[in-house]
């Protein structure tokens, strides 16, 4: 799906790289690391929002996949109601038609916001706003979903519910997910693979395939705990407490 080869990103100072990584199609990959490790830069490079200082990014069959991006804040346009926010990508790509309206309504239903189509963002809770943001990212039928610490500002209960909803979306839509987080437990819970970045300039410290035998109650298993411990120790060695 996505191959990053010898990627380096510098601003005034080096912030990332060199990075060599391949993201497989339909995988769920989390990127963790301390603040300033270049996690968000990694995501923006993968999305093409910024360009690398050196190295190359290539896509499967040389076709850039359709992407959806969920930011740390919901980035909803406050002057648009929920349905119009979800329709924004269709409008910007000039595909705004009755089909896209239908898709938007369907996605709002899927993320549990049926009946909220005409509400404005200021009438929604933080969790609901994030759901709209996910619906907007998915409405164009993207192959790659990029999420930049999307649940960090939410309370525990809402966050857990959204994590499960995200897993359900990933499983049922055959998409690839790149998920940036600062939470080790969240990364292990959600992902098939966790990439740990060192503090800036971020290089890959660990690329761990998560062993996940049980779907329900995974967090209580010894595999879960040992993998969280392993990743936490790596980050502690790096001299950063998460």
């Amino acid at each position: 799906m996505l191959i990053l080869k010898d990627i380096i990103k510098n601003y005034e100072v080096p912030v990332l790289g060199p990075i060599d990584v391949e993201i497989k199609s339909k995988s769920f990959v989390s990127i963790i690391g301390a603040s300033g490790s270049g996690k968000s830069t990694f995501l923006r490079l993968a999305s093409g929002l910024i360009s690398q200082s050196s190295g190359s990014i290539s896509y499967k069959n040389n076709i850039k996949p359709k992407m959806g991006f969920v930011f740390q804040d919901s980035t909803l346009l406050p002057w648009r109601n929920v349905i119009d926010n979800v329709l924004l990508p269709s409008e910007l790509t000039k595909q705004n038609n009755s089909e896209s309206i239908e898709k938007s309504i369907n996605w709002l239903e899927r993320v549990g916001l049926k009946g909220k189509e005409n509400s404005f963002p200021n009438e929604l809770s933080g969790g609901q706003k994030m759901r709209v943001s996910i619906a907007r990212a998915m409405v164009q039928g993207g192959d790659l979903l990029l999420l930049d610490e999307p649940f960090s500002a939410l309370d525990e209960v809402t966050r857990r519910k959204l994590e499960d909803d995200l897993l359900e979306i990933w499983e049922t839509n055959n998409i690839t997910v790149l998920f940036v987080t600062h939470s080790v437990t969240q990364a292990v819970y959600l992902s098939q693979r966790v990439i740990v970045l060192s503090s800036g300039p971020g290089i890959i410290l660990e690329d761990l395939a998560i062993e996940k035998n049980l779907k329900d109650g995974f967090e209580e298993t010894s595999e879960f705990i040992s993998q969280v411990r392993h990743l936490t120790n790596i980050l502690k060695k790096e001299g950063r407490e998460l």
Partner: protein
Amino acid sequence: MSRYLSYIAPLLTFTILLILWEFLVILNKIPLYILPAPSDIISSLMLNYLDLFSSAFITLRITLLAFFIASSLAIFLAILFSQSRIVELSIYPIAVIFQVTPVVAIAPLILIWVGFDNAEYAILILATIVAFFPVLANANLGIKSVNKNLHELFSLYGAGRYQRLTKLQIPFALPFILTGMKTSIGLSLIGTVVAEFVAGSGTSTGLAWRIIEAGNRLDIAKLFAALILLVILGIFLFLLISYIEKLILRKWHDSSII
């Protein structure tokens, strides 16, 4: 209760002050040409209402026209600035120069340029200059304040300049623009009156001219009556823009949600 109190308290204070004023003038036998009592001012207002209201209408017309021209020009320039840094660097300092130059200092010049027979144009230009900057500064700030993530979102979907401007930057800047307009509408009125004082005497028949005329004749009650009309005009214009602001922002902006 507190909602009514916010109306009752200032009204009550104002009424008490008026009563005090009335009694102080009567008790101290202050001459009419120094300080008329409120009852004298009301009498003068009723006696001269045709003169005063027609002058108020002239002042209002120029104020609104100046406000409209200033706002349109300022928003247009702010949009232009957002599209070209060079244009902004070239024009913004000129706008600042106009802002810091006292309107009374350039009034004679404008009057000469437009001709003494066209004093109304001079007033309009001067009032426009006074009202222009707050909208420009606020619109410019609003357009520039768009969240970086929102810009990235638009980039992700390949939004062009026009889409970015119309679907993101202008709506985002609306609360800023309306704040600028609330300042600007008051300045339009002040600019019109000051310009009438400086450039309009004798040829313009706005409220400022009525004030000068009443002052020259020591008709202080009429002078106060004209002043009252100016204050009412100012409050009316401010409330009008506040109402428009509320209509536009009521559904989505925190400032308009009670």
